């Protein structure tokens, strides 16, 4: 159906190198590769978002060279991008139909729009949301679903999904897979990108692997084992142990308390949450999209003003929740936020400047002190090596990095700043399998060094593999706690739904 012929894209370096591929209707074609391998760049070329430097494409027998997304859409190619493009001042319905607002003579048909929006939202498991609500009220997971819905409600021939599940938890992913099956049966050619190998294995009919912009080959389902895939992705070939096997060395023995949260409230999404975190402990937080995990972290960090409760950091006396992140950072907290584009990075600034950012307000550093950019550059270089950030130089602006590499910059920034308690919201979002191991290693080392670590992740497998204990948030409440290393996934899943099935009855501990 869609044929790529030696497609090439040059930026400062070559991002995609002579890739020739063919996509067949009714098939899910997975595209794998390490961070910065060129997957998103390839997709953007197909979707008309950027122009290839060389090469050509043929769609359904006709030459296809879109120079805008609009043309690509007309030709029947749709893309759900890795980075979110939700417009937060518009309503959900308007976001859904943005490129094609239902209208008569330019006047909106609000009723039609509302009706169809309701149908689509229900279809994507967002049925409990009001189509008139502004998109700013959504969390990242919900925004991701909305973005998928907005780009797929129209019939298409080719559908590109660039890491659609990175911010989704099990329930939502499952629903997405159902939709994918449905589209498949309609004869849509689906190009699917993910770093979650398990889901690729079950979903994909064919698998292509990119490394450093070059195509390594295409295989059918079942031809490759997970370890083969990883070996083909990385250079030099690495073998990767499955997450489940990299268990925590031992539950931290320290009884020193790193963080204690009492009855924390952030209406309406966090209700009387209490827990404590020991130094050297990795505490995971599981939950469904919209369960309030992000809000919990933001309330602890002072990014949103909590409406009640108290915090205790280390052995200092309990205090009111922080009023702003500055107080939190001074008290020794750091937070890796979920939405790197909105509040994690300075996209137009260099890697070095981003890593240096939290260091600009250290106590004792005067306002007119020298910024020591040279030193910042050296530090950045170290992190680029340690975390395998793929870049041309540390002066490259972060916005031009691949998604996974951007996430690594966020990590590097906080590792450099350091603190006693790490709050991590989806720390591995978009990071490839190999680098993920490195990130786990880093987290584990932090724990060894006596930091308290709170990890929110939608990937249950990741939490089970990584954490000393796991708490579950459901509908804004802390519904259960489990301690490792032997978890019962079923019990955790049940706890994740608990808050919804029995509303207003289960009072928090």
């Amino acid at each position, binding site marked *: 159906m869609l044929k790529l012929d030696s497609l090439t894209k040059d930026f400062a370096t070559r991002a995609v190198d002579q890739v020739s591929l063919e996509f067949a209707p009714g098939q899910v074609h997975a595209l794998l590769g390490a961070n910065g391998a060129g997957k998103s760049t390839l997709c953007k070329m197909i979707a008309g*978002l950027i122009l290839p430097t060389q090469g050509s494409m043929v769609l359904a027998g006709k030459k296809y060279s879109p120079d805008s997304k609009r043309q690509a859409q007309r030709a029947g190619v749709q893309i759900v*991008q890795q980075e979110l*493009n939700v*417009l937060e*001042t*518009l309503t959900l319905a*308007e976001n859904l139909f943005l490129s094609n607002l239902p209208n008569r003579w*330019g006047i*909106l048909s*609000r009723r039609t729009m509302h009706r169809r929006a309701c149908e689509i939202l229900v279809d994507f498991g967002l049925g409990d949301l009001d189509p008139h609500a502004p998109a700013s009220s959504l969390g990242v997971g919900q925004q991701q679903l909305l973005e998928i819905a907005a780009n797929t409600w129209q019939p298409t021939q080719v559908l590109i999904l660039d890491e659609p599940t990175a911010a989704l938890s099990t329930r939502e992913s499952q629903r997405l897979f159902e939709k994918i099956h449905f589209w498949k049966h309609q004869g849509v050619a689906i190009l699917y990108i993910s770093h979650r190998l398990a889901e690729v294995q079950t979903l994909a009919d064919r698998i292509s692997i990119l490394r450093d912009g070059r195509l390594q080959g295409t295989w059918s389902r079942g031809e490759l084992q997970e370890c083969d895939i990883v070996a083909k992705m990385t250079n030099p070939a690495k073998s990767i142990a499955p997450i489940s096997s990299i268990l925590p060395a031992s539950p931290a023995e320290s009884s020193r308390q790193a963080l204690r949260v009492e009855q924390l409230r952030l209406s309406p999404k966090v209700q009387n949450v209490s827990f404590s975190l020991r130094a050297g402990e990795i505490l995971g937080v599981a939950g469904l999209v919209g369960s309030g995990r992000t809000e919990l972290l933001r309330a602890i960090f002072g990014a949103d003003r909590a409406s009640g409760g108290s915090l205790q950091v280390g052995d200092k006396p309990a205090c009111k929740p922080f009023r702003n992140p500055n107080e939190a950072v001074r008290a020794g907290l750091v937070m890796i936020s979920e939405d790197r584009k909105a509040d994690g990075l300075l996209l137009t600034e260099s890697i070095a400047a981003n890593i240096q950012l939290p260091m600009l307000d250290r106590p004792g550093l005067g306002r007119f002190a020298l910024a020591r950019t040279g030193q910042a550059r050296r530090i950045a270089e170290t992190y680029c090596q340690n975390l395998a950030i793929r870049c041309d130089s540390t002066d490259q602006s972060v916005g031009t990095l691949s998604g996974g590499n951007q996430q690594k910059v966020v990590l590097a920034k906080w590792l450099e700043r350091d603190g006693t308690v790490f709050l991590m919201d989806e720390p591995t979002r978009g990071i490839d399998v190999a680098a993920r191991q490195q990130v786990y290693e880093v987290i584990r080392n932090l724990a060894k060094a006596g930091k308290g670590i709170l990890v929110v992740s939608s990937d249950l497998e990741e939490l089970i593999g990584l954490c000393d204990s796991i708490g579950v948030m459901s509908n804004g409440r802390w519904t259960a706690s489990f301690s490792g290393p032997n978890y019962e996934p079923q019990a955790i899943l049940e706890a994740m739904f608990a808050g919804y099935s029995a509303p207003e009855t289960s009072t928090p501990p």
Partner: protein
Amino acid sequence: MKDHAVSSNRAIQQTLATYGGLLVAILALLGFFGVFAKNFLTATTLLTMANSIPDITVVAVGMTLVLIAGGIDLSVGSVLALSACCLGWLMVDLKLPLWLASLGAIALGACCGGLNGWISAAFRIPAFIVTLGMLEIARGSAYWITDSNTKYVGSSLGWFSDPIAPLGVSVSFLIATAVVLAGQWLLHQTVLGRTAVAIGTNAESVRMAGIRTTAPMVTLYAICGGLCGLAGMMQSSRLSTVDPNSGVGMELSAIAACVIGGTSLRGGQGSVVRTFFGVLVISILQTGLAQLGATDPIKRIVTGGVIILSVLLDSLRKQSAIR
């Protein structure tokens, strides 16, 4: 039944939340001047005020649309003057009939606006600088076609701004009100309006969604320019003169009205009706201070203070509402 009452109650609450801060500011100003300025709270004064705001209202509506789409138009005052001068030229020198001349003036304004929009959108140049250039160009052209003279156009335009007998308000005022309502409608109920909000929120995302941004921007700027032309007509009819110097500094008053009304200069947020309230705040303040006979230094200090305060109060109110 009960449901209905609840929902209407909620509607009232929502209206209060949206317009409350501004209404309080307006009432406070009216009350203050009512107490301290003789003859302020009289029908005559209020009608005089109503008949003197149509031009700035209409311009501010255009400005709101442009600001919401993430642009800015500094050339409004100059384009107003240029359209007015063109009107005078068409009417007096070419002796065209009124309707044709008016159409010409409004079209000229729309062209200037459209040009602003086209240059800034198609070449991705900050609107600030493009419209700053247009400010100079349009003003220069206005001097040029009038030879730097004000021109008397007589009373042929008078009906436009004379009070209508039983109502006391002028045709201009009615038109301005209609423009406000149309602007609000355009913003909320049309594809163009929603696209404007989207572009103002994040132009890059909109482009990523496969939507062309140039055409809507050109249209919005053209509307703004056309409204400046209309405002030029209103002003000329009120003064029976066309004046190449009219509208100097109007861009700042118009933007101030928008921002007092809560329109964000970063785009994506704003309301035409609230802009109208912003215009009211400014003009009540001006009229009140004039009736008090305040000295110029005091007028300016008070105006500045009230502008800051009104926005400050609104922001404090919103912050306390969030908590």
